[in-house]
């Protein structure tokens, strides 16, 4: 369990964290989500002890660790660029935390082999980091962090340096690993899809403070601000409010709650169809339909249609 109270941190004039409080339940997987410069990495590094806060406290499992060195916090930390020990092979990398604790050799070898099995790197013991792919390096770094049996596992944009396919694959793999190992995990990401896919709890940060925290569905369905709504998925503006493009319905006949629009372009994107419209006032509007919906409407450029938005799906633009 991690508890953070009124944490603040400045770098010169830049406020990285302004009075942030947070609770991460034991055994959960929490994502710190936000744009770059939102303070999410600073928050994670402060929990690990890699940054010293200007104010506030950090508790791990009920113990105040604010002034405890990172060496003594018992956290596993995984860096975006792997931080692999380049001059050591995979076995020595993973064994590092145990070697410096002078554990018996047999115990170290068993633990390393077991962890390499968990992360799917069995047989790579004598390879060097330069002989591994990015995804393999990051899995090695994860095994290395898990070897010391950390109280919490902290991941700083762990898949940020990998290409898209590997990223998706490792994401699924990490979720499965977490369900097996159950170590309290905090993950920093700027990718909302990754956060929604992985986390039990999402903490959305902006300008050094928390905008909203909750489950992925809570944040998606009941955003606390237009920033949250905009960050978690695509939005379009309609009638002075923000709305998700897939929540807009298109009808061929007018009704009392519809707005008139003209089809500008129909784009087929595989499983979805994007309709680009122009409203009566000249402002653009993009709507997302399923293939079935699009097929039923048989839309084409130049056609006049009528759009409608369900009440619950909107958020007043500009208001918090």
């Amino acid at each position: 369990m991690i508890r953070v109270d009124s944490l603040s941190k400045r770098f010169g004039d830049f406020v990285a964290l302004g009075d942030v409080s947070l609770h991460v339940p034991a055994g959960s997987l929490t994502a710190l989500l936000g744009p770059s410069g939102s303070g999410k990495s600073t928050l994670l590094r402060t929990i690990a002890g890699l940054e010293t806060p200007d104010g506030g406290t950090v508790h791990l499992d009920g113990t105040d660790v604010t002034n405890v060195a990172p060496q003594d916090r018992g956290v596993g930390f995984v860096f975006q660029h792997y931080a692999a020990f380049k001059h050591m092979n995979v076995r020595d990398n993973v064994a590092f935390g145990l070697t410096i604790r002078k554990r018996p050799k047999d115990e170290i070898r068993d633990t390393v082999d077991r962890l390499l099995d968990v992360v799917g790197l069995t047989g790579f013991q004598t390879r060097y980091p330069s002989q591994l792919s990015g995804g393999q390096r990051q899995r090695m770094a994860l095994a290395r962090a898990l070897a010391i049996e950390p109280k919490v596992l902290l991941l700083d944009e762990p898949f940020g340096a990998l290409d898209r396919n590997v990223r998706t694959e490792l994401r699924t793999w990490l979720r499965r690993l977490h369900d097996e190992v159950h170590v309290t995990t905090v993950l920093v990401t700027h990718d909302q899809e990754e956060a929604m896919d992985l986390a039990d709890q999402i903490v959305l940060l902006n300008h050094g403070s928390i905008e909203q925290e909750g489950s992925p569905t809570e944040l998606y369905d009941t955003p606390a601000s237009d920033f949250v709504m905009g960050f978690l998925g695509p939005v379009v503006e309609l009638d002075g409010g923000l709305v998700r493009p897939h929540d807009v319905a298109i009808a061929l006949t007018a009704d009392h709650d519809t707005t008139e629009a003209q089809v500008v372009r129909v784009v087929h994107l595989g499983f979805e169809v994007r309709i680009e419209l122009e409203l009566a006032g000249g402002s653009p509007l993009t709507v997302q339909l399923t293939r079935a919906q699009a097929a039923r409407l048989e839309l084409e450029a130049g056609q006049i249609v009528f759009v409608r938005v369900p009440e619950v799906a909107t958020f007043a633009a500009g208001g918090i």
Partner: protein
Amino acid sequence: MSRIALRLTMFVYLGLVLIVPVAMVLVRTFSPGLGAFWSSVTTPAAIHAFWLTLLVAAITVPIVAVLGVVAALVIVRTRLPGRRLLEVVIDLPFAISPVVVGLALVLVYGRDGWLGPALASVGIHMIFSVPGIVLATVFVCLPFVAREVVPVLREIGDDQELAAATLGASRWTTFIRITLPSIRWGLAYGIVLSTARAIGEFGAVSVVSGKVSGKTETLTLLVEKRYQNFDSAGAYAASALLAIIAVTTLLTMTYVQRKASRQ
């Protein structure tokens, strides 16, 4: 065509300023015959100068290696005030003529110097003795290790060190197990350069040593003395000895560079 011209220019240039002169020294050294060379480099003064030169290098190089690594760590890894100043000051020995360094040391540690009398009263004589030669050589060699290690430290970043810290490694353990292996080739290169400089240093040593034959006379000083005394054969022989040490250093350096580039 222009590439061939470029290469030709380079070879002519290198030939005129480096290869021909050094080759001439070797030719002149060995033309009177090996026996003459041997007797010239085995006089008591020459043997003493040879060992003194190696002794000074052996004391100087470990000192500048440690100081260089510490300075590089302070410059790259800390936020201490004054680290930028240190980065400028560490290059000072490159900019100042070694003769000036020697004179400055005499002003501080000489008989009428600022610290000289106090040290003399407890029996330590810096000027005209080995400690002074070492001090001058250390000053002149100071930048080499730091200059080589600073860019390596910058390039590797501190991720690996932070990772070691989160895994429970103390600062010292991290330095020995992570930082030192990462900078080892840069450090080795810096040590080789320092060694070459320590052996070849003339200006600063010439001022502080007093050039006492058989006591404070290094190989470079011996070359100068023999040349001044119209013993050019002797000067060439001593030069050849220096050249042999230099070539050995150069070969080591090439080996180290090859190793490093393969990493």
